[in-house]
């Protein structure tokens, strides 16, 4: 746990990373309190045909969409699903990738070799194409998109953890522990994993931003979130038919994606620098 405190301090000292942290915290707050923050929370599903495609005004700061729904409310409500998707996908990927990486990094032999080859196969296909294929083969929908994204993201964790474990396996303190008679699970969970935690944390933060982008893209291509979900990618897709007149329709959901992903990326960047003193030195 010490490592986290060690990592937090440099972040607060770096204004850019702090901005990232603030953006992420803001988004989490918005997500938690979305139904209370949104001016028209019922616009998650309600339609108002008489006020379709209104430009931004005092009543509707971001304008209304093709079914007369308040875009500001939907952007706020969409934060929740964006963060849920990101957290679940990264969580599931970690649950698969971290054990695989630990095992394959710790042990030698055909099994760990095979595990890493399988990882390579998954990494050899561009993630989006694989997610699209999976999304089409199963029924399209948000759950499918999350499964597909998790199935394609875990290899990144496996790689990261594998590399860290390999590095630590030869470390002196591990040898000492083994000499003291500590069992493998104990060494892995109590000693190797905490030391690999910063690398995992950086990967997870970057993965959040990445997942939000890809999930939005899947929503945009029609294999992700289903209407009337206030999904941002879906909103941009729905907006296309109403351009160039309704410029506000794709603009604000897109900006929301940009800000949230920017937040995660800036934070991840800061974390990476904090975790890797070599890079921090080069940054000044």
């Amino acid at each position: 746990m010490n490592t986290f405190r060690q990592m937090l301090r440099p972040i607060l000292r770096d204004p850019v990373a702090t901005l990232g942290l603030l953006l992420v915290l803001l988004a989490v707050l918005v997500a938690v309190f979305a139904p209370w923050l949104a001016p028209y929370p019922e616009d998650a599903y309600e339609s108002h045909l008489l006020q379709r495609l209104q430009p931004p005004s005092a009543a509707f700061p971001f304008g209304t969409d093709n079914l007369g729904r308040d875009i500001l409310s939907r952007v706020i409500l969409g934060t929740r699903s964006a963060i849920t998707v990101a957290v679940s996908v990264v969580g599931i990927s970690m649950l698969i990738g971290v054990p695989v990486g630990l095992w394959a990094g710790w042990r030698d032999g055909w099994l760990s070799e095979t595990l890493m080859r399988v990882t390579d196969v998954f990494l050899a296909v561009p993630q989006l194409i694989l997610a699209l294929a999976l999304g089409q083969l199963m029924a399209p929908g948000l759950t499918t998109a999350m499964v597909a994204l998790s199935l394609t993201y875990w290899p990144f964790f496996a790689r990261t953890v594998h590399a860290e474990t390999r590095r630590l396996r030869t470390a002196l303190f591990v040898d000492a522990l083994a000499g003291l008679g500590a069992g493998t699970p104990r060494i892995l969970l109590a000693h190797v994993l905490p030391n690999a935690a910063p690398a995992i944390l950086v990967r997870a933060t970057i993965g959040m931003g990445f997942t939000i982008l890809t999930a939005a893209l899947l929503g945009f291509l029609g294999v992700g979130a289903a209407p009337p979900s206030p999904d941002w990618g879906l909103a941009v897709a729905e907006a296309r038919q109403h351009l160039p007149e309704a410029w506000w329709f794709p603009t604000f959901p897109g900006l929301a994606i940009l800000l949230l992903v920017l937040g995660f990326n800036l934070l991840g960047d800061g974390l990476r620098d904090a975790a890797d003193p070599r890079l921090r030195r080069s940054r000044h």
Partner: protein
Amino acid sequence: MARYILRRALLALPALLGLILLTFVLTRIIPGDPAAALAGDSATPAQIAEIRTRYGLDRPIWEQAVVHVRQVLTGDLGSSIFSGRPVMEEIIFRLPATLELTFAAMLLSIGIGIPLGLLAALNHNGPIDHVVRLLSVGGLAVASFWLAIMLQLLFAMEWDVLPLRGRSDLAYGAPPFHTGFYLIDSLWAGQWALFLDSLWHLVLPAVTLCLPGLASIARFTRSGVLEALQKDYVLYARAVGYGSFRLATIYVLRNAITVTVTQIGLLFGALISGAVAVEAIFDWPGLGTYAVQAILSADYKALLAVTLVVGVVYAAINVLVDVLQALIDPRVAEDIR
């Protein structure tokens, strides 16, 4: 070096074989019966049974897997369920469109990314540095499909200064097919107007697509240069009176290029993913739109072929990158087990 290249290529083989098996597994987890899908609507059970025998779908699963691998290795990816044409034929016409777009984007990323990274490093902690840093993080945070739509909205719809869609004006036919790259084929045929038109059509999609690559290259160049500037020999050279610019070009840029080459492999994966969105928005007749159409028409044969072809191209590019890297820096070749 030749041995290294051979070994590197051989190392890619298990991954490719795994990829082929993965696509096979995918065809088998599809809900529904591939034979029924192939038979089409209003097919009788007898017709479906006949198709099952014809395609060997009644054989044991491992036998089917072997057949699948053999077919793929001989370049037979089957026929599209939707159009009835060999999938390979359709892909051959579409792959160059995607490659032309991604290469253009990659050139832009490198051509703009390296100078930007260099500028930022030389202007360390100055205003340019901050702008470039923000850009390099922001560039990776923009959803490509959204950026494409916004650029299209401004440049093609509102101001009407750039083409809206496609590889060339629709009234032109395609240039005679040699490479499938419009820029090359139009020059080959001496069609200047078409060449310029194609170049013009490439601007918006390539600019949209280049952004993530540009961002990461600028960022790696920047940190590479910064790191190199801290090296003792550089500090020494500076003390002796070399200017920043000379230093940058002599010592630093070479390092930066090595770093960039490493990035290209990773970048290509991102470019292909981005291309799916960008192609869909700019109506670019490449593999991305092909994949989207395959999804809309439940054409799993086409989709699997795209997955496979993209995987192979991706693997090939990664091998190429490793080889290039070894050529630039022979130490890399020694590192590999």
